[in-house]
């Protein structure tokens, strides 16, 4: 029971030696699609796509990480709570030259297919015990809910943070790639709309290894920690891991004498991954065998997690700052006359082309378009008629500029 084509390539990271290469046909199909979309040079006119934007504004939306991981069960410990972040850049395309809008509009956000969270995870039962705060139902760490209004960030875009989204939709189905609808209104009238993925997954496979009989995987983990480090975690559940091991993702300083959570986890498990025998070891802990969060044009071209991030030893390097020390596009990409991220700035925060964020045209990290997931391609397809980088000038410009676009951070 194997599918053919696009998705065959996605589900390739199971047990080692189990049909991995049987998926090459599917993978090549994806790669061919990617090259066809991105490798033939950026088209400049509407002829390359079948759609043109008809609204006076355009809004381009992306997620900051490309995947937000969380747990379903918090009764034993907390690694990551529900917390999602969405960015939107609004461009007024009604005049002769487009400009980025930072005021005067309302940017609304909702996820019509996923409207509740408190019934899908027990985070709201254990939040008080873990963080000392009793959050209101369906309200996340920053006070935002599952629908709301994006706020201006002061850096030429809008965002909403801490959205407590889970990967279970209102139909009860697992969907790590739910669509948010973002609507821009001005003076009460809708001037732009888009739909973009708000990725979230709780697919963590601790039980691949932590499966001692008679106890839960979580208890097995805490018991092992107690045995190896002389702690008393099992007796003090639920445990906030970042209370000791610093985690910049949560803003938790931890104990400065202990390794960061990332260093502790990657370092402690680096030499133990052989026992799980996965094609992609990362998917033992990061989502995952079903989710396959690395789903972008790189994946489609045979580039996997460790090709950019390095192995577990590298990620667990104690000198590394988790979440900040990340791969850079120009580690691999170089092209005469082109520039990639801004110096000292990550892809997700970089801008070019008169202040347009990279994400606006290229998509979220780990979901750089064209992706192998249908949901992540929707925005580009609907705005310009095809998946892939937003390469049609008329998406933002009211008329075809005609000039070649040099990919530089200070390009006008």
């Amino acid at each position, binding site marked *: *029971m194997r599918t053919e084509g696009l998705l065959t390539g996605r589900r390739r990271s199971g047990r080692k030696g189990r049909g991995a290469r049987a998926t090459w046909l599917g993978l090549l199909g994806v790669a061919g699609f990617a090259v066809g979309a991105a490798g033939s040079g950026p088209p400049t006119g509407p002829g390359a796509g079948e759609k043109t934007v008809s609204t006076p504004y355009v809004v381009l939306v992306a997620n900051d990480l490309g995947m937000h991981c969380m747990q379903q069960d918090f009764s034993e410990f907390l690694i990551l709570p529900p917390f999602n972040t969405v960015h939107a850049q609004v461009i007024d395309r009604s005049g002769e030259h487009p400009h980025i809008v930072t005021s005067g509009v309302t940017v609304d956000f909702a996820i019509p297919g996923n409207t509740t969270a408190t019934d899908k995870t027990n985070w709201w039962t254990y939040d008080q015990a873990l963080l000392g705060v009793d959050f209101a139902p369906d309200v996340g760490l920053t006070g935002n809910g599952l629908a709301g209004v994006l706020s201006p960030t002061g850096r030429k875009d809008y965002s909403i943070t801490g959205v407590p989204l889970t990967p279970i939709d209102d139909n009860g189905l697992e969907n790590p790639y739910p669509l948010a609808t973002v609507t821009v209104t001005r003076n009460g009238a809708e001037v732009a709309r888009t*739909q973009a993925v708000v990725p979230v997954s709780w697919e963590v496979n601790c039980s691949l290894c932590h499966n001692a009989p008679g106890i839960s995987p979580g208890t097995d983990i805490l018991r092992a920690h107690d045995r190896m480090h002389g702690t008393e975690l099992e007796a003090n559940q639920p445990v906030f891991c970042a209370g000791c091991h610093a985690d910049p993702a949560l803003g938790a300083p931890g104990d400065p004498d202990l390794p960061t959570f990332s260093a502790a986890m990657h370092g402690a498990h680096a030499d133990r991954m052989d026992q799980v025998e996965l094609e992609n070891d990362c998917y033992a802990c990061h989502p995952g065998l079903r989710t396959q969060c690395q789903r972008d044009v790189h994946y489609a071209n045979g580039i996997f997690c460790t090709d950019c991030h390095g192995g577990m030893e590298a990620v667990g390097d104690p000198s590394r700052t988790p979440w900040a020390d990340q791969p850079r596009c120009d580690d691999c990409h170089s092209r005469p006359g082109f520039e990639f991220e801004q110096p000292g700035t990550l892809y997700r925060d970089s801008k070019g082309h008169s202040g347009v964020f990279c994400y606006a045209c290229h998509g979220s990290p780990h979901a750089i378009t064209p992706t192998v997931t249908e949901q992540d391609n929707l925005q580009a397809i609907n705005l310009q008629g095809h998946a892939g980088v937003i390469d049609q000038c008329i998406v933002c410009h009211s008329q075809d500029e005609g000039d070649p676009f040099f990919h530089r951070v200070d390009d006008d």
Partner: protein
Amino acid sequence: MTNHSMTTRAAALAGLCALAGAASAQQYEITSLGNIYGPSAAYALNGSGQAAGAAIGTIEDLSPYRAFFWDGALHAIDPLAGDLDSHAVAIDDAGAVYGNSFTIGRFAVRAFMADAGAPVLLGNFTARGANNAGKIVGQTPGTDSAGWRTSSACVYDSGSVSTLPGLGGRSGLATDVAENGDIVGMATLPKDKVNHAALWRSGVAHDLGTLGGARSQAHAVNEGGLVAGVADTAAGDPHACLFQVNGAGDVASRTDLGVLGGRASYAYGVDGSGRAVGTSDDRAFLWDGGQLLDLNAHIPAGTDWHLQAATAINGSGQIVGWGRLLGVPTAFLLTPACVADFNGDGSVNTIDVLSFLNAWAAGDSSADINGDGLVNTLDVIAFLNFWNAGC
């Protein structure tokens, strides 16, 4: 201690508890529906105690979802050809299972019916509920004039899918259908930021409103027009709610079922007599006789279960859902126990009283009849109430 003296003591205690008027809630036997590899959950139950749900498949198959049918053993149901995942949502009294076939990362969800064989395609919609007349309700996808995705509540009947009207927004979802054809679910209001619970009768959508807050959802309906769901209170907290619908399809009353703890509760199922089940504060609940009961207090003491959510209840009082069994989410079936038949020999007699008192005297956890974690006089009263009531 002779049987005679024990019987006398029991009779005396029976009289005592009758005088005290002590009440004892129903106890349940718990059955694990099992797992394939990882977590499992039960979402549906028919009148015969057969169940349906979903379980995580084997790691060798890359941990897909697998719909299952349970009739004493768990039977996995494969997805339709071309998909990787399957998920069952309903089961009728004949044992036909209704569910969905899908692949994570794709838009398409296809509804299927499985009846003692391979699943059969019903259509390109998401199934969510079904009745014994073959009506299936759920959600069908669409697009607006600009190409953005929308969805509508829908009903499948006699081979065709019909959309149901919304409440002003672009999204709708039908969750259950009664034997009389009443359909319930939810739909977004204009601007698509919030859902309201909805009832569709004769094709007309009725907004079931809220408990004073912004949002509501309906998850189940019985023949008497009693709808189980959730509605925000004026404080903004989602509370399990029973909406009583009148003959015109409008709401006659809304009952806030309260919470077991925390600030939220959700009702997912309701039987013909008005008993409702759901979840609150990470615990499965039963609403019965005006009381919200934590089902964890009504299963045998000393199990490794923590019941998290109850999703359906049938006319025999059986309940399905999921809970943590040694930390792993696992589908369960609760069957009302005959507590009075303490020795399990199929009859209720004085031997049961003797057996109970022996266990009680020994401090055995099986004598913790009221499930409060203690073996004391209250358990004697509780047991004798059950014994007096019989089974």
